[in-house]
C-alpha cells in the first residue's frame, strides 16, 4: 500500500527512491549516510540478496536497526559481516570489477555528473573547505554510480567548482579519453526525480518524476538546463512497508531528518 504524499519527509522519500534503484543480487559499495541506510532498506525490502561493501573494509554486513554507524570505519559496520579486509583491498574490489554499483551522497553535482566534495569557491582560496573525496574519487572512477542527494539549485550546478569524483567530465568521450574506461554515472536520485545520463553527450536528463512533482519544479531546482522528454515516467510513492522498515532502521533519525 502506497502512502499519501506528505506522509514522509524529503529524506525519507530520497532514501526509499534510491533504495529502489538497487537490484537484487548486486554488490553495492555504499557510502555512509543515506546510501548506507538506503542499501540496508533495499536488503530488507525487494533486494535481500544485495551485498553491501563499506569503505572501511566490510563485505556483506547486516546493519542492526537503531545502531547505524557514524562512519563506514566503525565496528558497527561489521555486524554479521561475511568478511573484513583492509581499506585498500575493499577499494581494489572496485578496480578489479567485482562491484556492480557505487552508491554515494553528494554535496554538489554538475550537468555531466561530476561531484564536488572538496571546495566551494576556488580550490586555492575556498569559501568553504569541504571534507574531501574519501573513497568518492575511486568509487566514481571505477564503477557504475548511483548518487542520492536533495535536488537544490545550489547543489545542481552547470559546472562544479572542483571535480572531486568524476562523472562524464566535459561530456562526450572525455571520461574514457582521460583513462577512465569503465564505470560512470548511472542514476541520480533526488527528492524530486530520478535522473539519468545521455549515452552520447553524458548530460543529465530526467527519467522519472516522483508523484506530484512537475518537470518545471525539477528544472527550477536545477542550475542547468535538463532534458526532460515527453515520455518521462512517474515513480510510485513510498509504501507503508518501506516507510515502516526505514523508520525501524533509523528510529533516532540519524540520517533521515
Amino acid at each position, binding site marked *: 500500500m502506497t502512502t499519501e504524499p506528505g506522509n514522509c519527509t524529503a529524506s525519507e522519500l530520497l532514501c526509499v527512491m534510491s533504495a529502489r534503484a538497487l537490484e537484487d543480487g548486486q554488490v553495492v559499495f555504499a557510502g555512509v549516510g543515506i546510501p548506507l541506510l538506503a542499501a540496508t532498506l533495499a536488503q530488507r525490502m525487494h533486494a535481500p540478496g544485495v551485498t553491501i561493501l563499506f569503505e572501511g573494509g566490510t563485505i556483506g554486513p547486516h546493519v542492526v536497526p537503531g545502531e547505524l554507524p557514524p562512519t563506514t570505519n566503525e565496528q558497527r559496520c561489521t555486524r554479521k559481516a561475511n568478511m573484513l579486509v583492509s581499506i585498500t583491498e575493499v577499494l581494489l574490489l572496485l578496480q578489479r570489477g567485482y562491484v556492480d554499483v557505487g552508491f554515494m551522497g553528494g554535496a554538489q553535482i554538475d550537468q555531466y555528473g561530476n561531484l564536488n566534495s572538496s571546495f566551494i569557491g576556488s580550490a586555492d582560496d575556498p569559501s568553504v573547505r569541504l571534507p574531501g573525496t574519501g573513497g568518492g574519487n575511486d568509487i566514481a*572512477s571505477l564503477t557504475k554510480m548511483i548518487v542520492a542527494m536533495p535536488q537544490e539549485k545550489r547543489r545542481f550546478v552547470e559546472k562544479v567548482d572542483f571535480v572531486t569524483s568524476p562523472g562524464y567530465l566535459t561530456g562526450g568521450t572525455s571520461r574514457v579519453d582521460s583513462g577512465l574506461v569503465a564505470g560512470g554515472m548511472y542514476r541520480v536520485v533526488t527528492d524530486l526525480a530520478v535522473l539519468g545520463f545521455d549515452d552520447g553527450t553524458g548530460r543529465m536528463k530526467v527519467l522519472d518524476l516522483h508523484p506530484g512533482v512537475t518537470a518545471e519544479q525539477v528544472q527550477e531546482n536545477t542550475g542547468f538546463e535538463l532534458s526532460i522528454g515527453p515520455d518521462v515516467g512517474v515513480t510510485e510513492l513510498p509504501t507503508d512497508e518501506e516507510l515502516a522498515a526505514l523508520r525501524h532502521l533509523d528510529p533516532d533519525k540519524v540520517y533521515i531528518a
Partner: protein
Amino acid sequence: MTQSYLDLRERTQARDRSLREKVMSLEEACEYINNGDHVALGGSTASRTSMAMLWALIRAKKRELSFSRSIVSTEGDLIFASGIGNHILTSWFSQGIIWGVSRVMRHYTENKLARFEEWSHMSIGLRYRAGAMGVPFMPMRSMMGSDVAGRLDNLKEMECPFTGEKIMLVPALNPDVALIHVQRCDSFGNAQLDGLTFMDIDIAMAANRVILTTERIISNDQIRRSPDQTKIPFFAVDAVVEVPYGSAPHECFGLYEPLFSHMDYYAELTRKDPAAGVNEYLEKFYYGPENWTEYLELIGLGDLLDAARRGRSIYDD
C-alpha cells in the same frame, strides 16, 4: 617523501631488528619522533587512532611534524590547533558525517594556517603499499581526469607497456614514523589485530620506525600459539607502549565503541568559535592531566564503561 631505494634500505638495515624487549612509556616513545618527521597514523576516522601517542606528542611540544592517514577525524583538529604540525595528507577530514563539517578543519585550512593535502582514498593506500613493498610506485586506475589529481604534482600518468592503456602511478610513501594502536601485542612488538585493519599493515611495513600503543601486552608464547593471527612482525616495531583505552574517545574494535557523548561534547565546544573551543579542549584534556589515567578520568568512567559495553557487544551475535 619518496626516498631513494638505497636510502630506504640503509635506514631499515640500521634498525635493530632482533627479537628484543621494547616496552616503554609514552614519554620515552616520544623520543622516537623527531621534529620535522612525517608521521603516519593507523586506524581510520574514529577507529583505533593512536590517541595516547598523539596526546604525548602534543604534550611534548613536538614541532613541524607532517601527518598522513586514510581518513582524519578529531585528531586532525588537535594536530593543527596544538601546533605540532600544519600539514595533513588524507582523503577525508572532518569529525564524522553525523557531526557535520569540522569547523576547526575549516578554520585552519580556509585561513591558510594549515594544509589539508587531498588524495583519493585508494591512492593513499597504494602509496603506503608501495612503501611497504619496497618499490617506488604503484599503478592504479582512479584519480585520472579529476581535479584531485590536478592539484597534485607527484603523480605520473603512463602508457602501460603491456596493454597500451593509460595508467596512473602514485609514488611510494615511507613515513618516518607510524603510530599504530592495537588490541594486543607482545613485548617484542608482534601485534595481533581484531576486526578492521584499515591501512595499518602497509603503514607498519612502509614506515622507517613504528610505535605501537596497545590495550594489552601478551606473552610471546601466546603469539606463537597462533602465528597466523599476527599482523605486524616484531622486527618492524621500535617501541611498544601499553595504554588501556589508548584510542579514547575513538573506538577500538571489540573493546570499546566511540565515546559518543564525549564526541558530541567536542563537536559542540568547537562549533561556534573553533579556535577558542579546540584550545579550551586542549587545555582541559591535553595539558591539564598529569598522566593518561587522569585524562581518562576527565573523560569519565561512565562514558568508558558505556563504550566498553557497546564495544564488546560485537561478539554477542
